[in-house]
């Protein structure tokens, strides 16, 4: 295949690759590697990493703990309102981050829907680490839920049926058959959700603020340091690139029993706050 058309294809591909990779490469080559390492040891960067690790781990643990059984239930029951329910679960995926932020404030803020009740119990959520966890869970869990629902739906009902006729109750069937068979899809969905959580910005800054050492995550720190010390901002940016690239690789390489069912291994959904 030679000629003007093939040439045009090659040029378009080169433009796309250059455009997408140039900013990423620039982060690493704009300053010498030594200074990049120095930037990472700055207290603001260290604090941001610790806050991010803590909130992301808690948020993801909760996403897995509640999301997995919820996805299994939705995937294995057929009921009339199911499409509606799935749409509701997916809605935060397409919501602008600012809307997510204002929604969280309206629900859990001091003057929000549950604010009075929470305040009465002596709980304050907005502008605490709990708020960071909430914001991450709100924007990231739909990625996991959506993938988990399709992963569980892809498990052949004959296999879970076979488990039941072989004497396994519903719980044993879930842990011994459905969960291992859906593991590939769950892992892929979880990596996406994890990546989305790490990158969370808009809802967090509105609902949790950007207090260093308390609610300032890596993404927020990049934005803050951009005004203060560009090199530290670059260093944190580089750190986030490495983490994200690692997660993307994990999504691609995650093993899957259900060959065809591994849901959306491309990052197709909007990453609005990046």
């Amino acid at each position, binding site marked *: 295949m030679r000629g003007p058309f093939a040439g045009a294809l090659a040029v378009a591909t080169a433009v796309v690759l250059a455009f997408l990779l140039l900013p990423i490469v620039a982060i690493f080559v704009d300053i010498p590697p030594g200074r990049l390492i120095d930037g990472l040891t700055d207290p603001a960067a260290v604090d941001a990493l610790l806050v991010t690790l803590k909130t992301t781990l808690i948020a993801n643990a909760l996403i897995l703990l509640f999301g997995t059984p919820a996805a299994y239930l939705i995937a294995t029951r057929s009921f009339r309102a199911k499409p509606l329910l799935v749409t509701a679960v997916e809605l935060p995926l397409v919501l602008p981050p600012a809307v997510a932020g204002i929604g969280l404030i309206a629900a859990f803020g001091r003057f929000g829907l549950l604010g009075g009740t929470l305040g009465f119990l002596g709980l304050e959520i907005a502008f605490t680490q709990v708020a960071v966890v909430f914001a991450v869970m709100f924007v990231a869990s739909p990625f996991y839920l959506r993938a988990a629902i399709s992963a569980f739906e892809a498990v052949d009902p*004959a296999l879970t*049926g076979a488990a*039941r*006729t*072989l004497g*396994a*109750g*519903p719980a044993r069937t879930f842990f011994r*058959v459905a969960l291992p068979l859906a593991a590939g899809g769950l892992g892929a969905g979880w990596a996406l959700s994890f990546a989305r959580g790490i990158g969370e910005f808009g809802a967090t800054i509105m609902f949790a603020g950007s207090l260093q050492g308390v609610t300032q995550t890596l993404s927020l720190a990049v934005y803050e340091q951009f005004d203060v010390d560009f090199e530290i901002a670059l260093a944190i940016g580089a750190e986030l690139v490495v983490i994200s690239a690692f997660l993307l690789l994990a999504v691609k390489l995650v093993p899957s*029993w259900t060959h065809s069912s591994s849901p959306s291994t491309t990052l197709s959904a909007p990453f609005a706050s990046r």
Partner: protein
Amino acid sequence: MDTLELTLDHALRSFRLSVALELGCETLALVGPSGAGKSSVLRAIAGLLRPERGRVALGRATWLDTDLGVDLPPERRSVGLVFQEYALFPHLDVRGNVAFGGRGRVDELLERFRISHLAAARPGDISGGERQRVALARALARDPAVLLLDEPLSALDAHTRGVVRGELAELLAELRLPTLLVTHDFEDAAALAHRVGVIVEGRILQLGAAAELLAAPADGFVASFTGANLLHGTARSGADGLTEVVLDAGGSAFSTDHAEGRVGLAVYPWEVALARNEPVDSAVNHLRGEVRSLVALGNRVRVRVGPLTAEVTAASAERLALAEGELVVASFKATATRLVPLA
């Protein structure tokens, strides 16, 4: 041994499944076209499908009684269900699959089904016949009181099928469990089961020994499903106390059965003889036609002549030098000609 009793009434997509069966220590085959509701019967017995109305009981243990609100979950019904595509767990090895049903007899079962050497293999890496043996071993690991087989041979290639059918027949004879198997193949049903029920659109049209079904098919569907030629025609009383059927396809034929009006004329391929010229013999029915196709099946040849299929030995086909397009005479006796109501 206990008797399995079941009555089911359940709406499927385009018809109602309405079945009543009772089986003791025997193998009963439900045979019918795909989508006839066969698998739903098995699923209802196993507890994987809850019928709108029904009762399933093994001896004095009631598994399901919609009137009394009894519905035991599958894990509390003593059934071994072998799924159509075997439904082996792809993430477990052969030993893990068999042990899933019960750990006590794993080694014994692996030995018995000659799959010990495959214990560490994954289901995806073994042959169809081996998979079937694993599925049977797994179903029996739970020591079930009832065995249910869903199309146990359909996932196998023609070569393996014959061998596995023989093995399965031996196994069933040995187990002496109430066994319900469903298949779309009448030959498989006849080879494996004591009694055969022909099921169409959720209803059992006829239930009896395979030989009974062949000798007296209840209607045109049963006749054609059991392998008979089915010709449509109009019956009236003829000479010598025989019934004459004027065939829609042209010509007429005689039967010793009595009938009047629209009927199906059923004659089995092995009752049809072929000759070059009209023979002088005891057969009353002679149809002259062109040979449309010849299909060799081992030592037999299936020959399509006009509207009929005849089965003759390979040697006879050679002796007559049968070839496509040639005119032959197909003969069959009035005593071998069944008249059945059209379905």
